């Protein structure tokens, strides 16, 4: 009957999305105050990489001492994205030559404040970066 057909079609249009919804997406990381910034072995010693931390970029560095460090990558001067300079062994902002040390302290140039430091933990082969703040 027409009604039965209509009911079936509309029910389908309700249940189809629900069924798709129930299947978890491939990307399981939700972000938040903890992210997986990379995998062990991804970075060579004395290099760094930019990763996404919430809505802002973060900088993950592997020092030649084998230690991982993570900082906010938003320059405190005019918000350009900083980078790690292996040749200088410091964090550098290409916009106006701001320099920071590996702990984020502003050393020279225009930046008025240090970069926020993050905690780094290695779990298995994942490098976990987390904020130090808690609400």
């Amino acid at each position, binding site marked *: 009957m027409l009604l039965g057909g209509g009911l079936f079609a*509309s029910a389908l249009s*309700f249940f189809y*999305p*629900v069924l*798709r*919804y*129930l*299947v*978890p*997406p491939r*990307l399981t990381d*939700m*972000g*938040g*105050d*903890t992210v997986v910034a990379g995998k062990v072995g991804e970075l060579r010693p004395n290099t760094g990489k930019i990763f996404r931390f*919430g809505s802002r970029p973060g900088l993950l560095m592997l020092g030649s001492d084998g230690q991982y460090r993570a900082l906010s990558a938003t320059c405190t001067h005019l918000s350009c994205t900083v980078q790690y300079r292996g040749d200088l062994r410091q964090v550098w902002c290409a916009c106006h030559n701001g320099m920071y040390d590996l702990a984020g302290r502003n050393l020279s140039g225009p930046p008025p404040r240090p970069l926020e430091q993050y905690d780094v933990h290695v779990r298995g082969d994942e490098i976990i970066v987390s904020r130090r703040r*808690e*609400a």
Partner: protein
Amino acid sequence: MAPLARVRNWLDERFGWDELLAPLRHKTVPIHRYSYWYFLGGITLFLFGVQVCTGILLLLYYRPSANEAFESVQYLMTQVKFGWLVRSVHSWAANLMIFTAFLHMFSVVFLRAYRKPRELTWVSGMLLLFLAMGFGFSGYLLPWNTLAFFATKVGTDIAGQVPFVGHRTMIFLRGGEEVTGATLSRFFGFHVAVLPGLTTLLVGVHLLLIQRFGISVPARIEPEWRALPQEKREMRFFPSFLLRELMAWYIALGVLGALAAFSPWGLGTKADPFAPAPAGIKPEWYFLFMFQTLKLIPAKLGLLDGEVVGILTFSLAGLIWLLVPFLDGTKRTQRLVMGAAMFVVAYMGMMTAYGYVAK
């Protein structure tokens, strides 16, 4: 025998199915020019059902901690298939449900359906309305965005102003002195466990009472209604009224889908407890008339604090409203109640509109 008939037989042999359903077959709904108002209760119930279903689906992905709540909702809206739909439907249905609940309540007031013997139906309904607003208030905080955070702060601040019990109530609601992750945990608990439990109980009571007393006919038109012949004045609940209700529910579903696709619910920015409150913070529309009133009351009224006077006045008004069936015995009080009801509707409408345009 046809398969459906065999299932019915099986159930009837064990549960006395036919005997159980018999009274429902006789259930009727009055037909008169105000009959359309009868749909509102059912629509509200349907929307509650939508909320339960979408709410359960949201529970599969939502994380109730200050660190992860916002991100989990963001994840839900961007990564989960149709997550955007489930979330927007949940948010819109919440508002629609409270709207239809208010409409249902006012229709009962103006049709005086709360008169004897239906006083307790009214009381259970009013309590359900308060629970619905509690659902709205607690659910609003869960995405942990800036607007929600500050709206909760302001709302619980107001609760804290009540004399004697205010501060303790505020601490109970917030899980501490300030709005923090502890507040989020609490509100989550209220929203998914405490309030649903209480609501289910009260809905059960409400429906039971309706079954017991049948649907009320407005006193005004009762004489002319009684004069009608049987077939003209009543329709069977099964299947006539139910099918009509189903139409209304389908239309509501269509409206929800359209709202979700054309006016999706926004996410906002993640709450930062240390940032200053954004200018022009307002609560959701169903609290707006009270909020706007409190803003307009001067800081001091004689010796008394203006805000406290406002809160107490609203509480008193709510209590009187709750007890309205017990108060309108005579013709005079009935006229008073009608007049007051019209004033209340006009006041709420005006204050809500004012609250929207005010800075």
